């Protein structure tokens, strides 16, 4: 027993060749696992993105070919689907893009101004009932739009705002996207308090501390808000469908849906073409703002 115990540590040193077979197996396994992972990931990614790529390619094909070709190779580049789709509805798609752009711009400005103000108050000011108000603010993040849409519609239709962008922009000016308030609160809390205290000693009031110290420092949070507001407003269909019923006021998603409903299923080419047009801005926003998107999700989501 005792000799066994004393001997036990020695054999490995004297006999290293005893271990290689399993070690070799694990290293082969190790060497294979990384390429296997890449292969798996590329495969998953390809399957996921294939439909989108196929839509882009199909939009450049003559209509009758779309059904026949599940592949991605283009024989010829045809742009007639785009021309046909662009002018399919009156006014043309250019108007809808412009409408969406105006709406998105209004929403972005509204969110940036109002949410940053609210966030400054929650992050830096002491006031009565702060915990209570903050709790309410967090609660409204999870409030589904469907719960408030009916009375909101009643209100906005009574003041004659249906078929204007006001019902879509005014809520943003009133900081109702609590998600962004929270995101900015988190960001401001991370800024050193010494900065505002120093400014305070120098005689700065809250408006100046906010405008000249906090706001310039929170550019990343503002960028995240901009990019998310852009994408969410551009994609939003439900509220735009409800408030915009006049074709002259249609935004891209509402117009696209009405286009799809009004055409027969055989005109896939032009439907795809306009679908592609409608997601190009999202794709561009994604390319430009990736960094902020990922950070925005990760910081508000993760700990």
């Amino acid at each position, binding site marked *: 027993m005792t000799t066994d115990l004393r001997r036990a540590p020695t054999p490995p040193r004297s006999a290293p060749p005893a271990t290689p077979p399993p070690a070799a197996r694990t290293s082969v396994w190790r060497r294979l696992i990384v390429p296997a992972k890449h292969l798996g990931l590329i495969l998953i990614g390809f399957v996921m993105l294939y439909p989108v790529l196929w839509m882009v390619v199909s939009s450049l094909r003559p209509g009758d070919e779309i059904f026949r070709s599940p592949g991605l190779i283009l024989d010829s580049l045809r742009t007639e689907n785009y021309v046909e789709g662009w002018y399919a509805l009156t006014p043309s798609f250019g108007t809808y893009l412009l409408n969406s752009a105006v709406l998105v711009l209004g929403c972005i400005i509204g969110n940036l101004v109002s949410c940053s103000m609210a966030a400054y108050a929650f992050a830096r000011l002491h*006031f009565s009932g702060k915990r209570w108000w903050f*709790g309410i603010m967090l609660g409204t993040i*999870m409030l589904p739009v469907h719960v408030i849409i009916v009375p909101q519609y009643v209100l906005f239709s009574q003041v004659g705002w249906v078929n204007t962008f006001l019902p879509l922009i005014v*809520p943003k000016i*009133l900081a109702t996207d609590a998600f962004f308030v929270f995101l900015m609160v988190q960001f401001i809390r991370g800024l050193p308090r010494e900065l505002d205290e120093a400014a305070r000693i120098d005689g700065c009031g809250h408006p100046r501390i906010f405008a000249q110290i906090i706001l310039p420092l929170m550019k990343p949070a503002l960028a995240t808000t901009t990019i998310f507001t852009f994408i969410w407003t*551009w994609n939003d269909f439900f509220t735009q469908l409800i408030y915009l019923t006049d074709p002259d006021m249609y935004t891209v998603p509402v117009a696209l849906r009405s286009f799809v409903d009004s055409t027969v299923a055989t005109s896939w080419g032009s439907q795809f073409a306009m679908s592609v047009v409608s997601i190009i801005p999202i794709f561009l926003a994604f390319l430009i703002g990736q960094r902020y998107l990922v950070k925005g999700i990760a910081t508000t989501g993760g700990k």
Partner: protein
Amino acid sequence: MSALDELRQLRHGGVQVRKRDNKAAFWFLAPWFAGLVFITIGPVLASFGLGFTKYNLIQPPKFIGFDNFARIFTDERLHNALGVTFTYVLVSVPLQLACALGVALLLDRGLRGLAFYRSAFYLPSLLGSSVAIAVLWTQIFGAEGLLNRVLGFFGVEGKGWISDPDTALSTLIVLNVWTFGSPMIIFLAGLRQIPAVYYEAAAIDGASKWSQFWRITLPLLSPILFFNLVLQIIHAFQSFTQAFVVSGGTGGPSDSTMFYTLYLYQQGFSRFDMGYASALAWFLLLIIAAFTAINFWAAKYWVFYDD
């Protein structure tokens, strides 16, 4: 820190307030207060009131007592819509989170090209709620769509997936699973927080990858999983666009894609039965609140907080 952690802390008391800036706070919060009154909490309360009326926007609201709420219990189309919505939520969210976690685990720990993969998998999350993708889905799962072309290549005969009431909902579930990118990013951020030392220590003790996953990764990731679960369930309950576009606004075929939100839309904005729509809105709020409460209650048994 997530919104949920904040709520948890608020419940357990926070820092005492010393000096007050009530006046400044009032001005900074003025837009938000106005929003609270007119856009969020105000309408929530108003919709409760409207729920007791018959109202079509033209004639003034007429008080009808509990009729709208009683109707919720007898409306069979609504019960079907509830079934469709629950199926959608309870099937698509777990599948979506499983994909998100699975891919996040593959991507974790210094795999080359992480940024590229992350972007590629995230893109569908941005596109998923757009009308354009719904249009694409209608084609993919149509009788002569892309899926059947691919199946035909393998000699399998397909069918009109969207026109068949048995499979129409599945196509929407697939669409929701397709958008697993954003929970995946949250998982990735969570995985990065787990100290590598834990795995090293476990490996020295001879723990297999499998048991490392169950005993280290999963418990330490459980708060993130919980966060994703709560968020995605709330999110899934609100799905609207895809069902609307795929079914041409009808919720068909045979009400098989009639989401709760779509039914609410039809009652409120096609039939202008604002009273019933308000009652439905409140009922939806209760359902979502109940699901969230159950989630929080169940969290006590499986979510592991390190602090």
